[in-house]
């Protein structure tokens, strides 16, 4: 079978070709199958990715019908993956014009990204149109990224920034962020800076100006030191320093600040600055006025103290003078009072004498004159009576008096006179002198009067011979005697002779009157008062130490001690 043989080899060839084609086909099929598998796998993978990505991946056809709707972010709008497929976006979002508008834009062929804010979510959606072979738009795809939290964060940030800015602009001062470099280069500065220093904050932000330029040169080192010290200790700093304004006016500022760290690295300084010029000024004024006040108080106190001391001294002196003036003034007053009756008596006496000489008087007239004279004498006597009364009105019973102290105090009062008159004063005041029962004030008057008399008595003699001796001593168990001697010319005859006799001298010096009053005082104390010229009593034993001139002596009773 040749035919058959030919035929069979031809067939065999064809079979072989077919087999090869089948093998090819099988191979292709195998490839196709593996390709499909790979595709499916990649689809699954994609879907897994998409469905877990925080996005919504969607596709629309030319009519806006969803052909694809995937992505985890679908949850945010309450859809399951694929759920929207087959529905029109215009139906689903009929209440959200923005979505409908965006989709129309995309279906018109526009590529764009937009942000959609829904009540509960926010998306940033990128629309991309799909075109057929002819280039006509036959749909679009969109990738919407969930930006809900980002937006919220952004919004919160913006809000907080706003709040911060508002705060920064409204605080009564300047808020800053700056670098801790030599210039304190500004990072942020509130606008209040302009009103503080007269330079707009913008000029700092653009680095045309910096803190270093406006800090008072004298305070700069201190600012650096305090800031760096605080940073080293990671503490806040509080500075008070001066700034020089654009108009050269110097202001005082207070700065609170702190370093802001990132890890261990200092990122910047932040803080706020307030103008405390007024406060400083008022503090300074206050301090000044307080100082002034204090100074004045001190001054015033010193003055007052001095015045007080002066007053006390004056008062003491005045009290002394008043006390001691009593004898002198009493004498003067007495002289004045007695002048009246004495003059009247003299008028009657002289008038009568002239009438008698002229033989021009009757007995009746003369008797009348005598009556008048008698009446005036009584008037004089009553004046003296009232003086005695005055002197005696104070009881001296039980009064203690240190006679030596009284002598010293009286001498102190006439010290000036003693010095002026160059009188040599000798005092013999035994320290064991017992206290006497007497009114120290009155006794001082007596002593003062006597000492003054002595000084005056010696005024006309040469200065070298002016000596005054004051002596106190106990003469018996119950008596202390005081002796005052001068080296003057002695008492005039009529005075010296009037010892122990009642008298009233009307001499201008009033010495006799003073003596009389002195005697009245001593006698009122139960003592004795006498005087004379030293020469006249030269036989007396105590004359050895006598210095010549007049001697005045008085005794006072010693205070009896209760037994």
């Amino acid at each position, binding site marked *: 079978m040749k035919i058959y043989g030919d035929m069979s080899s031809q067939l065999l060839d064809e079979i072989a070709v077919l087999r090869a084609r089948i093998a090819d086909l099988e191979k292709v099929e195998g490839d196709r199958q593996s390709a499909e598998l790979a595709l499916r796998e990649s689809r699954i993978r994609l879907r897994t990715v998409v469905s877990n990505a925080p996005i919504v991946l969607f596709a629309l056809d030319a009519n806006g019908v969803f052909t694809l709707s995937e992505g985890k972010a679908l949850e945010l709008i309450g859809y399951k993956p694929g759920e929207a497929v087959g529905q029109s976006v215009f139906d689903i979002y009929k209440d959200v014009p923005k979505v409908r508008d965006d989709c129309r834009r995309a279906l018109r062929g526009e590529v764009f990204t937009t942000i959609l804010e829904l009540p509960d979510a926010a998306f940033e959606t990128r629309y991309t149109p799909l075109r057929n072979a002819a280039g006509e738009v036959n749909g679009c795809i969109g990738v919407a990224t969930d930006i809900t939290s980002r937006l919220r964060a952004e919004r919160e940030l913006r809000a907080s920034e706003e709040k911060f800015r508002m705060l920064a602009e409204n605080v009564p001062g300047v808020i800053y962020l700056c670098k801790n470099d030599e210039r304190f280069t500004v990072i942020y500065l509130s606008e209040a800076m302009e009103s503080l220093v007269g330079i707009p904050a913008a000029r700092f932000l653009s680095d045309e100006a910096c803190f270093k330029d406006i800090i008072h040169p004298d305070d700069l080192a201190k600012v650096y030191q305090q800031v760096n010290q605080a940073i080293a200790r990671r503490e806040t700093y509080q500075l008070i320093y001066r700034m020089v304004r654009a108009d050269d006016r110097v202001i005082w500022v207070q700065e609170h600040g702190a370093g802001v760290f990132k890890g261990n690295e200092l990122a910047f300084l932040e803080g706020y600055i307030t103008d405390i010029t007024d406060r400083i000024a008022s503090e300074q004024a206050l301090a000044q006025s307080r100082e002034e006040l204090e100074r004045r108080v001190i001054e015033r106190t010193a003055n007052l103290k001095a015045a007080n001391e002066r007053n006390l001294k004056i008062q003491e002196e005045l009290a002394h003078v008043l006390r001691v003036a009593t004898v002198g003034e009493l004498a*003067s007053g007495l*002289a*004045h009072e007695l*002048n*009246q*009756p*004495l*003059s*009247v*008596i*003299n*008028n*009657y006496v*002289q*008038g*009568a*004498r*002239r*009438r008698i000489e*002229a033989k*021009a008087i009757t007995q009746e007239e003369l008797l009348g*004159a005598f009556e*008048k004279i008698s*009446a*005036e004498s009584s*008037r004089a006597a009553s004046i003296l009576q009232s003086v005695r009364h005055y002197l005696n009105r104070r009881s001296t019973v039980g009064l203690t008096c240190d006679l030596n102290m009284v002598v010293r105090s009286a001498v102190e009062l006439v010290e000036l006179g003693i010095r002026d008159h160059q009188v040599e004063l000798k005092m013999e005041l035994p320290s064991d002198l017992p206290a006497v029962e007497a009114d120290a004030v009155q006794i001082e008057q007596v002593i003062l009067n006597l000492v003054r008399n002595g000084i005056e008595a010696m005024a006309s003699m040469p200065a070298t011979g002016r000596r005054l001796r004051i002596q106190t001593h106990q003469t018996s168990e119950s008596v202390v005697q005081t002796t005052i001697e001068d080296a003057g010319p002695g008492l005039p005859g009529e005075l010296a002779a009037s010892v122990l006799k009642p008298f009233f001298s*009307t001499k201008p010096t009033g010495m006799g009157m003073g003596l009389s009053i002195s005697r009245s005082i001593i006698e009122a104390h139960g003592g004795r008062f006498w005087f004379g010229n030293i020469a006249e009593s030269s036989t007396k034993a105590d004359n050895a130490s006598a210095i010549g001139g007049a001697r005045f002596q008085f005794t006072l009773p010693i205070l009896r001690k209760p037994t």
Partner: protein
Amino acid sequence: MITLSQSPTVKAILARAVVFIVDDDSAMCESLCWLIESIGLKAKSFTCAAAFLSDYDPQQPGCLITDVRMPGTSGLELHAKLAAAGSPLPVLLITGHGDVPMAVRAMRHGAFDFLEKPFNDQALLESIGQAIEHNHHQREARRLQQQHEQKLDSLTSRERQVLDLVIQARLNKQIAGILGLNEKTIESHRANVMKKMGAATVVELVRMVMGQPLNGAGDGVA
């Protein structure tokens, strides 16, 4: 001793005078009256300045004795009042102890004298006599001055012109020349002037016109 009674003129002066006493102390007033009357003078006392002032006649010659210190109007104030009223009454001040500087001041203001209490009666009486005489002369001078002024007023203006030239010691001829009148007319005017003025000599006339005291007052003046 008082010697005022020597001259009859002075006697007459003292006889007309009244010594006024102003002292708040009535005993002092009485005793001063007693003393002053002892030499034959009239005395009148008042215990306050007001009483004296209401009673006082400025025409009455005399003098005033007053205490410096008095309640109400003091002696100094009384003196000042009298001086201000132009009274010629001499004032003697009596001062107490310590009032001397005050009295000295009063003297500077024209008080006649002051006496310190207790005063010497002789000194007081002498001072009173002097004061009265002083007062008399003052009054006399004032009276004459007034008289002269009256006489001068009685002259015609021509007579006054002649008088003025006469007291300048011009001769009648000169006066006639100056006034452009004849000498006879001047003689007639001159005679009228002398008559009207009551002057006997030109010297007298000059004294009158110059306001100087004239004769008759010189004797007996202390």
